């Protein structure tokens, strides 16, 4: 479907004041069509600034953002079209719910797109299913739901715009393991059924390893590695040098291999590791 390319993108906060802070420096990256791309980096590494570039919330100070080869800032008046095509779920999206019912809140995006009533209703139900929002919740007030339920409703609010590229900033932050799994699997299902690209920002190596196809690693505002997850995770020294690490289970397998046990080290989930080890017995 759609591909986003960042070309030499830079951004500085509070330029020319004592509080100046370089958020992104010369970032060049590609987000492939139909893939689940993970963006990994520490707090303050520039991840959130990066994702806000993807849908035109933040305008790069230099460099270009290309959506299907076209600069999204070519016509700043049409930036809202880009925002409908590239859906961004911000960090802790549950705090942006505002309408009287979950249904109305999910419908906010489609309504701004100027769709008709029936289409909106259809999209609300479809998005609710993808994000794991129970139909019973739809007529409740957002403030009557639990944190995890609100999070799902907020994600549904973006999915309802049917973005070609769905970008999520820490979608699973602060949720329990069941909630994490639920959301991550819903995102995979969305990709599989619609063919849209999904971009997930996280600092959980485990989640990334399990669900992503491609990985972009950023540190201190620069991209230090990108590509297929196997390629990225094979550079464990580089990852460690910026304070990140390969997934724990991959580390275990690698230590086994280092000690002369013949196992496959390209393993990213506990289930796969169990199967690998079973083969030995």
């Amino acid at each position, binding site marked *: 479907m759609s591909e986003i390319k960042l070309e030499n993108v830079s951004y500085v*906060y*509070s330029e020319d*004041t*004592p509080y100046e802070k370089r958020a992104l420096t010369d970032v060049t990256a590609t987000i492939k069509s139909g893939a689940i791309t993970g963006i990994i980096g520490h707090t303050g590494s520039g991840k959130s600034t990066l994702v*806000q570039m993807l*849908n035109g*919330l933040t305008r790069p100070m230099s460099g270009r953002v290309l959506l299907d080869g076209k600069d999204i800032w070519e016509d700043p008046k049409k930036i*809202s079209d880009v*925002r*409908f095509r590239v*859906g*961004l*779920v*911000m*960090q802790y*999206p549950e*705090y*942006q*719910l*505002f*309408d009287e019912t979950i249904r109305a809140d999910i419908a*906010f*995006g489609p309504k*701004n*797109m100027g769709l008709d009533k029936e289409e909106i209703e259809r999209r609300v139900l479809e998005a609710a299913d993808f994000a794991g929002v129970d139909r019973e919740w739809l007529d409740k007030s957002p*403030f009557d739901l639990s944190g995890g339920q609100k999070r799902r409703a907020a994600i549904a*609010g*973006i999915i309802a*715009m049917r973005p070609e590229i769905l970008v999520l900033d820490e979608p699973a932050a602060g949720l329990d393991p069941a909630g994490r799994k639920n959301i991550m699997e819903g995102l995979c299902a969305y990709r599989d059924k619609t063919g849209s690209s999904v971009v997930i920002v996280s600092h959980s190596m485990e989640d990334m390893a399990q669900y992503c196809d491609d990985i972009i690693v950023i540190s201190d505002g620069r991209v230090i590695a990108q590509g297929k997850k196997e390629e990225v995770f094979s550079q464990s020294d580089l990852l460690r040098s910026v304070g990140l690490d390969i997934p724990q289970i991959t580390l275990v397998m690698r230590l086994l291999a280092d000690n002369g046990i013949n196992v496959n080290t390209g393993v990213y989930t506990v289930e796969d590791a169990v199967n690998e080890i079973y083969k030995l017995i």
Partner: protein
Amino acid sequence: MKNIALGQYYPTGSVIHRADPRMKLILAVLFIVCTFLCKNIYSFGAILLASVLLVLVSRIPLKTVLRSIRALLFIMIFTLVINVFMTKGEVLLFEWKFIHIYREGIVNACFMLVRIFALIIGTSILLTYTTTPIALTDAIESLLSPLKKIKLPIHEFAMMMTIALRFIPTLMEETEKIMAAQKARGADFTNGSLIKRAKALIPILIPLFVSAFRRADELSVAMECRCYHGGEGRTSMRVLKYRASDFLLFLAFAALCAGLIALNLLKTPFAL
């Protein structure tokens, strides 16, 4: 939005930055009094010089200082025009139909301009640019503490100010985030009629209020957990202490005051 000028504090580590906030508050009041003491061209010249000196000592870039003046440009121009056209005097310079411009009018206008300029520079250099809002609240609490004797809740007042100031950046950041989130869903805050734009604020204001209440609730629980019980017997983390340099600053300002009064006595046709 990050540029909104409430937290204008601009750290350079100058003498003025390091001075005691209570002294700076007193000096700011004194400086305001000084600007109103001026009566003739000599004293206005002196106060102008003092303002420039203040900027230089604080080492705050001229560009930043001028930005705060730009905000009041309209008032300055308005005062200028009113003074030029409305002042009646003895030396008529220009006359056309109902417009009479006297030399006194032009002199007055210039004096007023200098006065406003000095007022802005004095207060912004002594307070906003060089003192953090928290230090300022501490200073106010300390200066007003004698009023506790007549049962005025000074500590509570200062605590509320501190909390309010503390949360302004937080709420601003939050507003920005919520705005970005709603923009990502296609909300439009800049186009359309006034009513449409006012309506567009609802998706921002509701989440903002909800989160402000949530924060207030969390903060009160956190204070309760640490046994906060008001001002009695409470000590401060930052204890304010006057130092020798503070008194030197005070002397300099007192000298300025005296100098202005002396300069006012000089005879000149350019006087108020």
